[in-house]
């Protein structure tokens, strides 16, 4: 489609729940916690919203609740608006974000809410991870005994083989993201860890250990988008969506030509950069999909921040820490902040909005003007990259 026909879109409100093992909260409670916070932040009434997109992967499997679009619209007392849930595995949130963006950009709707939610701890860890395994190919991966961490372990092993990436370098991703999460009151973990702690943690799928994995979390995140020309009615610091792109690839990992890179992410990144007319080096702050530590290393290469094979060392050397060359996963990422699957893609955007507004208490990146989110589904079968900028 001709981009010139699209309206510019701004984010004018965001809301987030505390992530973690939320035994106190049901799916519905998480939705209202994030939704109400979002209305307050936007200074908007729930009756102002005219469409809703919900990101959620597995409510049916994890809580026996389907029809989550209507559930959220009902819980937040929206006005009989069109409401739907989108599922794209771990990229469900990013997909809901992009659907909301397209709805406003196209002129179809004027005040759209995107909300992501996942309630994961009402089932055992093994039931949850079996459910997550459905993000890959059920009959040609999961049924054969290849778990989700197993898929990323296969990627990690090949990355180590081709580029000399080490277990210490992967551990450095976890150490950084736990340090960032420590400064984020919404994060699942508030625990500083060392490279040694990470290396000595229990093996899950060699070479990935417990601290290389994101946890099973509950949580919800939400935001409201409007046409940029209306944004100042709601906020003094609108955040503009200057690029938004999505791509897909084979469902099975083994079918890809190169498993040390995620092609869908490379394609989405290239498109998003060109829409926003920026280069990777213009980005100040990024939330990337570190479902496993190796995934952050691969993301930094796919997003063009580093040449292939050079990200791991740079991360180990501290390049991507708070106020580094580019500040990556200031929220704590999926590793430290937690990974309530459907909420993650929206949470990434919430964190970038806070960073660009200058509201990221205790972990603010100085002078952040351009931010990026990178959300991946499965072992790389879906990827979404968004670019956000300050409206001033």
């Amino acid at each position, binding site marked *: 489609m001709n981009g010139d026909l699209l309206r510019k879109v701004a984010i004018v409100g965001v809301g987030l729940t505390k992530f973690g093992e939320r035994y106190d909260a049901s799916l519905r409670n998480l939705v209202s916690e994030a939704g109400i916070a979002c209305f307050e932040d936007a200074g908007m009434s729930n009756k102002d919203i005219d469409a809703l997109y919900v990101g959620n992967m597995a409510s049916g499997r994890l809580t026996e609740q389907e029809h989550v679009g209507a559930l959220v619209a009902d819980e937040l007392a929206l006005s009989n608006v069109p409401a739907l849930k989108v599922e794209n595995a771990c990229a469900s949130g990013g997909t809901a974000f992009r659907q909301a963006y397209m709805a406003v950009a196209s002129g179809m709707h004027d005040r759209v809410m995107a909300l992501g939610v996942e309630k994961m701890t009402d089932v055992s860890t093994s039931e949850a991870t*079996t459910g997550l395994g459905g993000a890959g190919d059920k*009959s040609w991966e999961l049924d054969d005994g290849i778990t989700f961490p197993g898929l990323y372990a296969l990627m990690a092993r090949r990355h180590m*083989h081709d580029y000399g990436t080490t277990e210490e370098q992967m551990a450095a991703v976890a150490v950084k993201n736990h340090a960032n999460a420590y400064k984020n009151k919404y994060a699942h973990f508030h625990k500083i860890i060392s490279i040694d702690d990470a290396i000595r943690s229990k093996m899950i799928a060699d070479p990935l250990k417990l601290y290389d994995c994101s946890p099973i979390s509950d949580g919800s995140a939400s935001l409201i988008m409007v046409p940029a020309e209306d944004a100042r009615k709601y906020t003094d610091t609108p955040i503009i969506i200057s690029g938004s792109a999505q791509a897909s690839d084979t469902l099975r*990992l083994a079918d890809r030509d190169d*498993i040390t890179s995620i092609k869908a992410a490379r394609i989405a990144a290239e498109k998003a950069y060109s829409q926003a007319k920026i280069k990777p080096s213009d980005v100040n702050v990024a939330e990337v999909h570190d479902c496993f530590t190796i995934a952050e290393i691969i993301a930094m290469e796919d997003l063009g921040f580093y040449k292939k094979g050079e990200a791991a060392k740079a991360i180990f050397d501290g390049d991507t820490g708070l106020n580094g060359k580019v500040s990556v996963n200031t929220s704590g990422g999926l590793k430290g902040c937690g990974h309530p699957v459907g909420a993650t893609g929206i949470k990434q955007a919430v964190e970038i909005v806070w960073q660009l507004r200058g509201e990221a208490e205790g972990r603010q990146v100085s002078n952040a003007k351009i931010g990026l989110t990178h959300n991946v589904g499965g072992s790389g079968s879906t990827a979404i990259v968004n670019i956000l900028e300050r409206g001033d």
Partner: protein
Amino acid sequence: MKEPTYNYREDSEKLNFVGNECNKCHKVYFPKRNVCRDCGSTEMIDRKLSGNGEIYSYTQIMVPPEDFNDKESYYAVIVKLDEGPRVSGILVDSGTTPDIGLRVKPALRLMKKDKETGLPRYQMKFEIID
């Protein structure tokens, strides 16, 4: 009798290494496809593969899927088959530690009885050729 939850419909293809080949561009696939990924053709012809190949990547899975089999850990691999396609699978327990580049051949094994149906379930695994 209940239906098994695994995809038994693909067993004959899986257990016999039957893939297919595009009749236009001759790309070989395993598992079979109905549409060629490269050229889009739908003229696909079955082709039996050897199941021989070499290890492209591997991992030792220490936390198996729920109710998968009796083993506490096992090696998973991606194998590049001699005919071209790559496929993931698991290794038989032969005591040899896998490495990238090692040659493998297929090995049919009884996994366990399917929990729903009580029927035996087989899996085509790989075995490292010493």
